[in-house]
């Protein structure tokens, strides 16, 4: 199944997502400008724009960082996760406008070229009010650029998923740099405690969400290990998996998707052969597990693509005891047929 790369793989969902995102951003910029003009009528247009885009980027960054743990804590946030790339690219563009305007405002009028002047400014590491906070912002912007520029599937394929993920972990470094950039920059000549309070609350919220999601996953892992008999590991209750959908669990260091369909259960590696898309976030379409990213299909009982295609993913043994689902964490070679576990139809106890 080869398909050509598109600039953006549009779907009605993504269009709506982007429309809402664009609307929220425009609304925020307008509101922020209005409020600032009312409170500080003396502000210059440049400063207003620098602040509007800077705070917009900061808010978007918090949204980007919150979505991951939110989706892990509550499946209802998952749809937000699907299009996080567009959120990330939008955030980078807002940050870029902020950085470009600030560089222009503070460095365009001297003798040195603006970027040189920026790099050579405020080099006092021992002073809070003269700390090189602009360089911190520039470093963060470079990281965000690399992430935005590599957000296309082409890069996921060229870099491979582990490298791509590692690169995109850079968002946490960028976040730290940006928090320092705001704390040592804008907060130094801000009299009202509003911005400092909001920034602090943001940091606490992001850290708290990550801790909560991590603790919850660790607890689930412990439960599963405790329940294991003859190598099979308890995964969840039958009724926790919706018809035509999957439940994703981490076994043997990788994710496994357990699908429920037509009264049966089958488990496959969660990693699509195409570009490592998350199969467990896809659905059963025409009897096949269908990858949510580009639609590659696999037969649930064998992990093999229906002919004429030849992609295969590893499969896992599944069984149901007392309406609880157990999976053998040892992967079978890709494409190995496994008899699906049968779910008794009587919705009650088994």
């Amino acid at each position, binding site marked *: 199944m080869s398909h050509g790369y598109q600039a953006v793989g549009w779907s009605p969902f993504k269009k709506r997502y982007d429309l809402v995102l664009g609307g929220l951003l425009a609304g925020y910029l307008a509101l922020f400008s209005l409020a600032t003009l009312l409170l500080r009528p003396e502000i210059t247009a440049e400063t207003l724009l620098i602040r509007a885009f800077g705070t917009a980027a900061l808010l978007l960054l918090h949204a980007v960082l919150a979505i991951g743990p939110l989706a892990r804590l509550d499946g209802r946030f998952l749809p937000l996760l699907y299009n996080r790339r567009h959120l990330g690219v939008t955030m980078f563009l807002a940050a870029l406008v902020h950085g470009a305007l600030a560089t222009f405002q503070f460095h365009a009028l001297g003798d040195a070229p603006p970027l040189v002047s920026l790099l050579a400014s405020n080099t006092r590491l021992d002073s809070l009010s003269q700390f090189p906070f602009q360089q911190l912002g520039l470093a963060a912007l470079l990281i965000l650029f690399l992430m935005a520029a*590599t957000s296309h599937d082409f890069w996921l394929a060229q870099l*491979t998923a582990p490298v791509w993920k590692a690169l995109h972990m850079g968002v946490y470094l960028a976040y730290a740099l940006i928090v320092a950039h705001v704390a040592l920059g804008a907060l130094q000549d801000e009299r009202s405690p509003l911005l400092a309070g909001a920034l602090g609350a943001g940091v606490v919220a992001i850290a708290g969400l990550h801790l909560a999601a991590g603790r919850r996953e660790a607890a689930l892992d412990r439960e599963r290990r405790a329940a294991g008999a003859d190598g099979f590991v308890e995964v969840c209750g039958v009724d926790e998996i919706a018809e035509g959908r999957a439940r994703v669990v981490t076994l043997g260091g990788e994710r496994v998707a357990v699908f429920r369909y037509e009264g049966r259960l089958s488990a496959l590696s969660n*990693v699509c052969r195409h570009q490592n898309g998350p199969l467990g976030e896809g659905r059963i379409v025409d009897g096949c597990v269908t990858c949510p990213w580009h639609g590659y299909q696999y037969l649930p009982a064998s992990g093999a693509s229906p002919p004429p295609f030849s992609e295969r993913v590893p499969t896992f043994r599944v069984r149901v005891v007392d309406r609880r689902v157990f999976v053998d964490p040892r992967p079978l070679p890709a494409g190995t047929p496994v008899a699906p576990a049968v779910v008794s139809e009587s919705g009650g106890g088994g």
Partner: protein
Amino acid sequence: MTPLDVATWIVRLAGAYAAAGLLFALLFLFVLRGVDRIDPSARAGSRGFRWIVLPGVAALWPLLLRRWLAGASEPPEESNAHRRAAAGGRG
């Protein structure tokens, strides 16, 4: 060297790297189309795809140049825990 000298050199080097990257990206994506060689999905790709990956190609050009010169015809295959275990001949 004063901070200004250091800054001047950093900006010059970064500028040279980016200029080389931009030139490479144009050749790689539009003129010589090396991208079609190293990734089959690019062959049928749209024009928009080429523009949208351009900034990244200009930034990470040494990686793609190396793969192009080495005659790669497919994106690299990654290994993960399941594929290793399933292929590793477990009884």
